[in-house]
């Protein structure tokens, strides 16, 4: 399939992910949407790698995956911690860094 279609899919996926990150109230959902964004990025990388015939794009996507895993682990640990102290993960109420 022509490469540009893949890019359009990637853009659309990233957009959906951004919507989730910006608009949802539950911290977990935000993290999930974040994963969507990362996936979109990997897709674009791989498309261009195919187009250029260069496998370095695969390597970068590989590292992205590892990063996503690490970030998900730590992020979830943070969310769990916050839940423990505040009994909620509702982002409306978590604004300690205010002012």
């Amino acid at each position, binding site marked *: *399939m*022509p*490469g*540009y*279609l*893949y*890019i*359009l*899919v990637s*853009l*659309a996926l*990233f*957009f*959906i992910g951004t*919507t*989730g990150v*910006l*608009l*949802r*109230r*539950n911290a*977990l*959902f935000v*993290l*999930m*949407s974040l*994963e*969507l964004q990362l996936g979109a990025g*990997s897709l674009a990388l*791989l*498309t*261009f*790698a*195919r*187009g*250029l015939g260069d*496998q*370095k794009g*695969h*390597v970068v996507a*590989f*590292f992205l*995956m*590892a*990063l*996503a*895993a*690490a970030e*998900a*682990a*730590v992020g*979830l*640990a*943070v*969310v*769990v*911690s916050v*839940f423990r102290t505040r009994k909620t993960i509702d*982002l*409306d109420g978590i604004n300690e860094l205010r002012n």
Partner: protein
Amino acid sequence: MNLMLHEPSLLERSAFIVLAAGVLGFALVTVTRKSAIGALMALVGSFCALAGLYATLSAHFLAVLQILVYAGAIMVLFIFAVMIMNRDEDNPIALRGLFLRATGVIATGYVFYRAAWIVVRERQSDVLSTASTLPIPDYGTVASVGRILFTDFLFPFEAISLLLLAAVVGGVLLSRPSRPSDGGGAL
């Protein structure tokens, strides 16, 4: 110049349409669900479809890794988290500063609209070609990607392993239950 030497076959077209629809559709479901578990399941589905897309791009190694790592490990992690917290949402969208954030979404949309326009316009460019003949015979396979990984990218590879170690340690520290003796974990 587009190096595509032939029109995509019906199989290729339908495969792409199904997979793309799956990715985007499941993603939409994820973002709009009220129940966390449901959203997670949709996310898993999205990732699987994404893996399929990777496969059509001849990125076989990564397709497999996508299933194993993302849909497998990361999603399981999420499920455990959801199980601990066990929350369902009655009001999924956060309210404070909604206007600002909605504007942010629209702004992102505008940027992508621009990006999409360029991409469409430049669709004939070399960079976006998906020629049926592979650049190298074992393009995208475990062996060839692995070769690059262990030669040119060896240092980042080792660094990533260090990062993972740090993440593991951090995760354990952060989620330790608070004991009176050490004042509540790391938080």
